[in-house]
């Protein structure tokens, strides 16, 4: 396997263009960091892009003969497009030719020692109305400052700053030259975001390594060699992980070089690599299943879109309440600023997930139809999985219902969310959701039975037992999710909720799925069984929402 791994690494390193993109990424990071650093050195987030030069067209009516400081300050303001007008023209405001008009009156005279008043007129319905004052103020402040200095000399006064303010940031802050500091937004949002960029760049390595090999027909010669097929999977997994780790280490080195205060760097590397391993394993699975580079491209793009959206949404929502949403991404965000909470559950869950997905990858590679074709459908694969799990022995019932129970939880959640949004959007009613959700759950819970039944005739007793077990597994997994959420949101009510679920929800789930299981065995009663189970479940939902329970 060492040889395979070295081969994979060498093929990437020897490709000059991959190396060039790695170097370019680093240069990009060197370019980005100073830009972010200068944006965020004050408490206020501000955006400066070239597009904002001359963003605010400001009409200026200068009736005075002594306004040099102010004019100079206005012309130096890159955000303003200064348009000198002969007179106040309201139509220019209303038509949008200018976003505001600044009138410097006749009595404005910078040589006189008096308070000078200028008038800014804006048009309420104009979209830039609110931004005009913000854009103008720095110029007026600059001209004011120049006049202040002049008048201090003229009056022979000096102005000390009478107020002493000591400001401290409670999370460690590095003060670099020039007094730059890094705000919470940069540390807990942008830095974690950037730490995950390497995973998005490893997709092409996976594509080339898996699908490219199949297209170039080099996989046949590889399989003819005396190697275990599982080594193919592990070598590709390890080489992709190696490059992600390499990029991650390089990026951390750049952050350190720039003085970004990152805590727990060892833990950050570990957690980010655990998350990235889960994504790499999933990407490998999609790549192995794809027939062509284009198909794999689409599948990987979908995966990366889901990952990217999850990353952005969890980091964005985090600011509402740090305890509200604990996802793997927010753990990294917390670690960056020195907070070590939530380190047990997610890493363990992701490691288990990665192990499972790699095992599936190995099973894939051992199938000739996956490697050489014709590619089996997803349904066929699930049927094979169901049959294999059931045939493992006495515990087969448990394995089948556990694995497909997890599948059912995810599938029903996605379906319920999609249907829920569509129904509310289309019909504007929420009552319809009660029977709809009940139907979805009852139909999806015995997923394992459906696939098993297509390959093996089930006896009534077997189907009833499997149905009941499916309901139990679904209940158990659903309760685990409930418990997790309740622990974070309402920890004092955790036991009450679990007791209620065991007393009421458990029998409903078990009974409902047992009924559907009977329907799977006696196919002519299948529709009736699903309807009956849905009816029971709907009544239960109504009782809960009506406050009866």
């Amino acid at each position: 396997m060492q040889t395979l791994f070295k081969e994979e690494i060498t093929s990437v390193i020897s490709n000059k263009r991959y190396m060039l993109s790695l170097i370019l990424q680093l240069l990009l990071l060197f370019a980005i960091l100073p830009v972010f650093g200068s944006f965020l050195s004050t408490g206020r987030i501000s955006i400066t892009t070239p597009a904002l030069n001359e963003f605010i067209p400001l009409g200026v009516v200068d009736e005075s003969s002594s306004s040099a400081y102010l004019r100079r300050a206005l012309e130096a303001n890159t955000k303003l497009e200064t348009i000198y007008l002969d007179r106040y023209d309201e139509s220019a405001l209303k038509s949008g030719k200018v976003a505001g008009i600044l009138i410097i009156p006749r009595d404005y005279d910078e040589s006189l020692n008096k308070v000078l008043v200028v008038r800014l007129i804006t048009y309420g319905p104009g979209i830039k109305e609110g931004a005009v004052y913000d854009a103008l103020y720095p110029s007026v402040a600059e001209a004011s400052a120049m006049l202040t200095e002049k008048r201090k000399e003229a009056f022979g006064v000096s102005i000390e700053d009478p107020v002493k303010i000591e400001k401290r940031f409670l999370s460690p802050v590095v003060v670099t030259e020039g007094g730059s500091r890094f705000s919470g937004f940069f540390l807990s949002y942008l830095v974690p975001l950037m730490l995950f960029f390497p995973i998005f760049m490893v997709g092409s390595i996976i594509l080339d390594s898996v699908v490219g090999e199949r297209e170039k027909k080099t996989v046949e010669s590889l399989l003819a060699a005396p190697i275990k097929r599982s080594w193919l999977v592990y070598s590709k997994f390890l080489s992709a992980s190696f490059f992600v780790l390499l990029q991650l280490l390089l990026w951390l080195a750049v952050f350190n070089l720039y003085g970004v205060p990152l805590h727990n760097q060892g833990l950050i590397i570990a957690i980010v690599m655990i998350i990235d391993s889960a994504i790499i394993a999933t990407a490998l699975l999609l790549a192995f299943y794809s027939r062509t580079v284009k198909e794999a491209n689409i599948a990987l793009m979908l995966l990366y879109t889901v990952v990217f959206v999850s990353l952005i949404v969890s980091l964005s929502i985090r600011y509402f309440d740090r305890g509200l949403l604990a996802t793997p991404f927010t753990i990294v965000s917390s670690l960056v600023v020195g907070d070590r909470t939530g380190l047990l559950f997610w890493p363990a869950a992701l490691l288990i997930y990665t192990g499972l997905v790699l095992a599936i990858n190995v099973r894939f590679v051992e199938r000739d139809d996956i490697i050489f074709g014709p590619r089996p459908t997803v349904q066929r694969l699930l049927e094979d999985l169901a049959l294999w799990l059931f045939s493992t022995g006495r515990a087969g019932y448990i394995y089948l219902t556990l694995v497909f129970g997890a599948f059912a939880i995810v599938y029903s959640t996605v379906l319920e969310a999609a249907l829920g949004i569509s129904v509310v959007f289309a019909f504007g009613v929420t009552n319809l959701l009660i029977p709809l959700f009940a139907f979805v759950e009852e139909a999806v819970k015995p997923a394992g039975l459906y696939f098993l039944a297509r390959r093996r005739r089930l006896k009534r007793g077997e189907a009833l037992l499997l149905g009941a077990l499916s309901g139990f597994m679904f209940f158990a997994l659903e309760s685990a999710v409930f418990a997790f959420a309740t622990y974070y949101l309402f920890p004092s009510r955790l036991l009450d909720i679990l007791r209620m679920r065991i007393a009421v929800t458990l029998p409903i789930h078990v009974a409902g799925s047992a009924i559907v299981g009977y329907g799977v065995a006696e196919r002519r009663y299948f529709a009736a069984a699903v309807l009956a189970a849905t009816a029971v479940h709907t009544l239960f939902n109504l009782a809960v929402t009506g406050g009866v329970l």
Partner: protein
Amino acid sequence: MNPVLARKELDDIVSERLYIFAFIAQIVIVMGILYAALLYTSVAAPQTTTFVQTERPRLGVIGQDREITSQLEEDLELVTIQGDPSELAMSGRQEALAQRIIDDHGLVGLLVIRSESEFEVYLDNTQLLSGYADTVVSDVLSKRAMKLKRKALEEKMETADIVLNPIEIETTVIGGEGSSETSPEFIVIMYGLLIPFILLLPTFLATNMVTDSIVGEKERKTYEILVASPLTKREIILSKTLPILAVTLLQSFLWILLLIYKGIPVYNIPLLMVLLLILDVIFIGIGVLISALSDTLKESNLTVTITIIIASLAMFAPLSIRQGLYRLNPLNLLTKLASNPRVPLRDLAPLIPLAALALLVLYAGEVMLKKRETLRL
């Protein structure tokens, strides 16, 4: 241009699952961008937006100062913490104590008022809204500083504002109130960054589509057949690129309509489409150039990615540029056109060099394709 080849290219584009997915992904991205802009506004200036209903940032206060606290209460929720400010100073563990107080009370920061002119501010900078609280506190303390300066100066002169505040701005708004979603922060981020990004998404994709089309044919070995046909190089390039141009412009137009539908005005649409047409031709021309130099899709995809990164950096990065030169940045004109109901004619001048560049790049692509074919064949 050959209509049959162009028709075939168009059919390939609309039936390609990757492009259909990219189109759907763009809709998601555009909606996501809108959400991000509103979220950004709620962080930078929560008082100006009703999009995100959050509680006001909570600031703890130790010490008494009615004037300061009444000013702070306009924008922050104040929590009075019992304690003697001097005890906090003497403890030697100010930061640890401050952190404990902040955690216990769910605060973003703590203000310790020692006297009329001495303050300590502790901020939990892991919380996004601490930046906003910092701004509010700084503004209020600046007003206190100004007040004390005024008091000191008025002992020596009649009107301190002659020195302290020499220029005042009187504001007048005509025509009624504006909309709450046109807060300055929202306008700046939408028109300065996000709208240009949204409108250029299809443009960036166009480069990929061109290389897919030309280099894809090279990989499938059908390019030689095309070259051997009676079509000229120019006809081949135009037949391949015009459908891509049409699809790209259509997408940009759809995103403009989507923005307008979501209540974000976009002005000067015809001129905007002309600018986008020129930019699309530039990027398509770059795609032709890359296709000429690449033999495989892998090579061309990588080159396209690098090119787009460089182009994005050049257009979006806030580099220090001499005044006047930034007018050559197409984003500057794009923003002006999209955000101003009227744009003076002189501001449209950059369209001319951009158009010239577009034709030049396309011509260079054609020449390079011819040259490389001679070498290949």
